[in-house]
């Protein structure tokens, strides 16, 4: 038996901004086996959820992931609405889809940036993150928050998108579209990116089926599954769009799927905005009295794939059981297929290829002065500053009208 070298990635490593440990067993340059260790930061959200009311659970599940923070409330709302047997109003459906698709755009831009960073191609990283910024501003304008938007509730949404905001959203979106063109052109034609990602970390169709992989990871291997199409929810059946797939299954195909999906998302948002204009002002929530006994299966397509929430209600005001499956749970397991046989340097981009969940919600880093150790801002001042910034954005949006 040949001797293998153990190369650890993690638990704390610049590649993974969350604590996870990948043990790569290498023979020379080649990865021969991989093991994954997690649980460094287990929060037991499923158990916590059983001690919270349905209204509170929305805020809890929103904090599962900092990037796709709306997909969990989305799936949870679908599950609870299935138990109650109601549908949100058309206006609420459009708003839900707009939030979901904006999130997809910002998440995919974030991934493209990080992928560039892992390849040592920091220009792509800086571009992508620069163009992502206006999308976050858009979120702040619509919801009041850059991340964790707190928009969802059982039966609808918390905030309306007023008609004067629609023009401002369209303006920023068209800008995002030109920048996406630029980025897509640069990434798809770049010989360095081709050399580093084509034929790397290939996942075959059979592997996808075997591991139950979802989202862009599955679609890049030619498995055309997308909950928005297969089991339509919110406003997705009301608009025209297509599922993007690629055949190669390598990292380049995953990038291609994500980049092209952004165009579909922009198109969906534009159609939803037109829908909102036609709908005029109206109710955004359906009032419900109580959650009856029963079971609900909620699904939503997050940027990384299908999010699944299984809720069992016993008729009380908190779930009796709440099972959550995030897409990374099934996608990360595919590393055994995609990484083994690669070189170590390719393994890093392969690990990043499925877009394992990262968190980047920190906005304000300097709160203490490094020299004196004194507090520069207290919590109240931070909140005031955040509110004043949101108000500035809203003013800007009104003056753009």
């Amino acid at each position: 038996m040949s001797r293998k070298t153990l190369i650890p990635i993690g638990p704390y490593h610049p590649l993974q901004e969350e604590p996870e440990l990948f043990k790569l067993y290498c023979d020379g340059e080649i990865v021969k086996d991989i093991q994954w260790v997690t649980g460094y930061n287990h929060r037991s959200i499923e158990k916590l959820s059983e001690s919270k009311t349905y209204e509170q659970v929305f805020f809890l599940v929103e904090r599962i992931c900092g990037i796709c923070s709306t997909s969990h409330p989305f799936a949870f709302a679908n599950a609870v609405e299935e138990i109650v047997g109601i549908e949100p109003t058309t206006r609420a459906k459009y708003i839900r889809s707009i939030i979901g698709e904006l999130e997809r755009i910002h998440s995919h831009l974030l991934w493209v940036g990080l992928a560039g960073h892992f390849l040592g191609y920091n220009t792509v990283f800086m571009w992508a993150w620069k163009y992502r910024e206006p999308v976050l501003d858009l979120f702040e304008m619509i919801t009041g928050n850059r991340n964790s938007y707190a928009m969802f509730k059982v039966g609808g949404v918390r905030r309306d998108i007023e008609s004067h905001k629609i023009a401002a959203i369209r303006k920023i979106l068209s800008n995002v579209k030109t920048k996406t063109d630029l980025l897509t052109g640069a990434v798809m034609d770049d010989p360095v990116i081709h050399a580093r990602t084509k034929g790397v970390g290939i996942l075959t169709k059979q592997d996808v089926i075997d591991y139950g992989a979802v989202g862009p990871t599955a679609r890049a291997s030619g498995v055309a599954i997308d909950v928005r199409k297969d089991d339509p929810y919110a406003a997705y059946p009301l608009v025209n769009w297509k599922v993007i797939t690629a055949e190669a299954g390598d990292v380049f195909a995953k990038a291609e799927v994500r980049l092209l999906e952004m165009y579909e998302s922009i198109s969906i948002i534009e159609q939803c905005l037109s829908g909102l204009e036609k709908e005029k002002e109206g109710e955004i929530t359906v009032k419900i009295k109580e959650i009856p006994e029963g079971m609900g299966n909620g699904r939503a397509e997050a940027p990384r794939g299908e999010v699944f929430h299984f809720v069992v209600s016993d008729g009380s005001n908190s779930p009796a059981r709440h099972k959550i499956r995030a897409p990374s749970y099934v996608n990360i397991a595919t590393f055994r297929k995609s990484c083994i046989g690669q070189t170590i340097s390719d393994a890093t981009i392969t690990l990043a290829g499925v877009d394992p969940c990262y968190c980047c919600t920190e906005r304000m880093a300097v709160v203490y002065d490094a020299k004196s150790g004194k507090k520069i801002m207290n919590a109240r001042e931070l909140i005031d500053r955040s509110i004043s910034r949101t108000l500035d954005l809203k003013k800007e949006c009104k003056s753009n009208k």
Partner: protein
Amino acid sequence: METESIIKNFKEMFPSDILEITEKNQKRVTITIRSDAIIRIAEYLFKTIGFRFVIASAIHTRRGFEIHYHFSKDSCGLLLNLHVILDSNKPEIESLSNMFNASNWIEREMHELFGINFLNHPNQDKLISEGNWAEGVYPYRKEFKSTTEEKA
């Protein structure tokens, strides 16, 4: 239409294994089966009709340990829950991980959190609490009380 024919064929294939069928609508069906039939039924769903294994959810109730195996038929949006009820005193069931890798981690997780034993599982090591949790204490069982709950 596809859902109806799937359910009809299912009934014909496994008449003695089905205990109850609940059809909520065309896209949500729950089938309660005998726990010893899980392998042949899962094999039929996964290999013959092309269902995707989504995840499994375990629940600890008065009836014992219940597992819902969630299978999805993406071409028609059908989500089929295979429901089994296991004995409280000796919860065990055949593992599906030798058929497909998708169930590997979730079975390890259920073993860890509920203490359900999956027979013939390739590796039932702890998945999420390796090295920092007592043996034989299962936090998702109903009798488990956290330290904050105990204080209260």
